[in-house]
């Protein structure tokens, strides 16, 4: 469903990625009819012969062909409408963790639930739409680490977070969006459907004609050579002559009237067209068009580094090089005076401050989802960049620690992960929204034979924050956590599930952040657990040293000792 409903995938279609290579291997494939001529990137458009053009025009007028094109186009649009409906529906799922959503996501993807970024992408896209365009567009971000961008007949342009995370600046983003706009502006979807009907019809007609011509030639040579044979050798001569004439006619007919089937790689042609148009859209908005070849260099190296992300299709050297060369040719050809004049007049925009700001969040979230796909190189790179852009982001610190920890080979690596967990605890100390770094810190301390009191406090802090985040539910691996506590000498501490707590406490349970007196802070939640948790004889330790001293609320209830 998804594959068939895609119109264009600028940067990920296998067919498009490999088609230039095919054209080069078979120089006649693009019907240029010149096998010796180098396949130059600027000359890839098919050159139908005049008779083919006439024939196609005639074929297109046939009612059955008209109907076939219309039916195929209707079908395509219907598929696109359905597909986009489902993509949009992803925003209405409340449970995005369950198996139902996983299946849905696999088919339709998931819109990135970050309104600020959605608005930003849409704004950049709308700016690029040509002023005289009759089409209405909508630009949307998908939370998907696989770099892709797609245009649909609905006017919807989908771009993945994986794609945006690859970009160095806004100019490159404009190039990608402009490329997709160009597919819609130039009606490539319709043309693709139209030619998918017309070309086979043309080939069938030509085959039929050739069959007739071959039959006529065979008959003529049979009779002619039979006659000559008859004159020379009587009936026997006529029979031999006719047979050899028939054989010769068949061979000659097949040689002379060969089937020159036209199988055009329309995808390549449209991609080149869209590349070129995108440069114009970019320049109209004063974006630096020279960023386009840089984007390809970046994508190519990323694909070489990690083919799993789907860029393996792009990394086909012939296609990538040809595409970069095409852009380079356009930029250094007739288009050059235009962008050079703009460059000299007022300069060209590479990026904006807004781009860097939004990239911090996008790279963080794409890095996090990339971990789920085991795309570790991408995840680490994205999260490192997110932390560079906004070092006080506890979520970015937490997941950067996680990806480093998952792939750690040495003690230094593990220490590096630990540093990020500590930073996550530090930056989340007031809100207490992230339980995980407390557990990670505890695990690190266990591995290092660290302070037992601190280990205990961190595990309990983890449970307390987890309960608050999950409406009182306990982590699913509580027996394991109790086991950790036993290992560090605590055999008493017990955490009750919310249901138990709520039956024994008149006041709102301390994991509940609602209430007249305002929500509990992270330290208050943790302290409510720790204050009563330390068994006699066990040193009372504070949570992670970076966490401020908690100030327990009077109404906070303890879950220990129940």
């Amino acid at each position, binding site marked *: 469903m998804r594959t068939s409903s895609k119109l264009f995938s600028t940067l990920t279609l296998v067919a498009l990625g490999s088609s230039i290579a095919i054209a080069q291997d078979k120089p006649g494939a693009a019907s240029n009819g010149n096998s010796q001529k*180098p396949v*130059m990137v600027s000359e890839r458009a098919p050159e139908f012969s005049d008779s083919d053009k006439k024939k196609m025009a005639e074929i297109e007028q046939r009612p059955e062909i008209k109907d076939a094109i219309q039916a195929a186009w209707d079908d395509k649009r219907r598929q696109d409408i359905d597909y986009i409906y489902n993509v949009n529906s992803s925003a209405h799922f409340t449970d995005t963790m369950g198996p139902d959503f996983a299946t849905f996501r696999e088919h339709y993807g998931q819109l990135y639930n970050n309104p600020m970024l959605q608005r930003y992408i849409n704004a950049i896209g709308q700016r690029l739409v040509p002023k005289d365009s009759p089409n209405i567009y909508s630009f949307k971000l998908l939370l998907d680490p696989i770099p892709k961008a797609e245009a649909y007949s609905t006017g919807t342009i989908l771009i993945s977070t994986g794609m945006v995370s690859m970009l160095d600046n806004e100019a490159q983003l404009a190039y990608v969006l402009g490329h997709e706009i160009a597919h819609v502006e130039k009606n490539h979807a319709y043309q693709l459907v139209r030619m998918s009907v017309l070309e086979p019809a043309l080939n069938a007609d030509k085959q039929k004609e050739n069959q007739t011509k071959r039959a006529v030639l065979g008959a003529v040579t049979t009779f002619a050579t039979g006659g000559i044979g008859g004159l020379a050798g009587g009936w026997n001569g006529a029979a031999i002559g006719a047979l050899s004439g028939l054989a010769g006619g068949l061979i000659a007919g097949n040689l002379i009237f060969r089937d020159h089937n036209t199988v055009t790689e329309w995808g390549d042609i449209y991609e080149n067209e869209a590349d070129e148009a995108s440069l114009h859209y970019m320049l109209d908005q004063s974006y630096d068009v020279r960023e386009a070849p840089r984007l390809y*260099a970046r994508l*190519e190296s990323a694909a070489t*580094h990690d083919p799993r992300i789907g860029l393996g299709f792009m990394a086909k050297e012939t296609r990538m090089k040809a595409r970069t060369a095409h852009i380079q040719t356009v930029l250094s050809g007739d288009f050059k005076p235009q962008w050079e004049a703009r460059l000299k007049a007022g300069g060209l925009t590479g990026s904006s401050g807004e781009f860097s700001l939004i990239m911090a969040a996008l790279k963080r979230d794409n890095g996090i989802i990339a971990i789920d796909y085991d795309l570790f190189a*991408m995840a680490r790179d994205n999260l490192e960049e997110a932390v560079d852009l906004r070092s006080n982001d506890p979520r970015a610190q937490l997941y950067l620690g996680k990806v480093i920890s998952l792939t750690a080979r040495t003690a230094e690596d593990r220490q590096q992960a630990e540093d990020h967990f500590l930073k996550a605890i530090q930056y989340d100390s007031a809100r207490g929204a992230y339980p995980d770094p407390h557990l990670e810190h505890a695990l690190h301390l266990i591995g290092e034979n660290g302070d037992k009191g601190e280990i205990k406090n961190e595990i309990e802090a983890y449970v307390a924050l987890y309960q608050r985040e999950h409406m009182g539910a306990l982590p699913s691996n509580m027996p394991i956590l109790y086991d950790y506590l036993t290992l560090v000498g605590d055999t008493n501490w017990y955490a009750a599930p919310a249901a138990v707590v709520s039956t024994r406490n008149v006041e709102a349970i301390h994991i509940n952040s609602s209430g007249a007196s305002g929500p509990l802070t992270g330290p208050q939640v943790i302290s409510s657990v720790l204050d009563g948790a330390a068994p006699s004889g066990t040193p009372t330790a504070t949570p992670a040293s970076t966490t401020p001293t908690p100030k327990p609320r009077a109404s906070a209830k303890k879950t220990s000792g129940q």
Partner: protein
Amino acid sequence: MRFRALLLGLALAAATASATAQRLSVGIAPAYDAGGDDFGPAVVEHLTLFLYQDLLGSKQFAPSLLNPGGVYTPLDTSWLTDYVQDRPDLDLLLVSTLKPVTAPDKNSWTISIELSLLDAHTGDVKSTWTVSQTIKSKSLWLEKGQSVFTTALNNRTSQYGYEMMASPDFAKQPIGKTTAQLADSIRDTLGANLGGFARTSPASSPDVAGTGSEPCLMHTKVTYSYKHSASHSYTLLANGLDQSTTIADGLSTFKIPEGPLLLQFTVNDTPYKLSKQEIYQLSTMHSCKSSTLVIDIGQGGDAHHHWE
């Protein structure tokens, strides 16, 4: 043999090192492949080196190889001038671009290189010109076939022989000969395309080392300082000799005499998204006073080096 010519060129350069200050120092940017054809990468890689070799023997120019990285494009000369900001010794920058092949007739193709000469300090374009060579289309197809065949037979040999250096194989092939002729044409036309450039500031002292000494130990290491990491997987040729086997924990160790040093290396463990050059070609002077050459690759794949 082309490679012997390189060694001879290096020796010549050593002998004339003291005269370097009088020559115009030309930074050679890696030839850029804007052709999109299969043979493009091999041509641009060798063209850069051939041109360097040709200019080594020149009395007018002192060449220096530049490595502005994988995101370098000749359309953005400011990238290049930014890259050479820490190279006051350079007078001029030579930018070359392999253009798409043209086919005047079906049997012969024309390979053209577009050239720009820039003032290294201001970035002003002093002149632009084009050199071309014609090659039989049949010969080129044959070479492509050979290249693929060699790769299929022995990937390592192919990597070294065909891609890693100016191999005798490549120089002997028609496309290699054409590339060499293109380099010669560039050398021959460079002097006439200075565009009135005259050195306004006194020439910087080149990092001239003594020559003719006994070989002494030197090390190389490749770092990605913006990621606070170092390469542990790279291949290295020093003055044409494979030193890859001497690399241990990212540090190569080998003996080499003082004098001009040409390093060619490829890195295999680049950080994610780093647009590396397929091959880095770096020219410097080796002195036994400094033992470690540190090559730092930046975010754009651009390589800078210094001695420690």
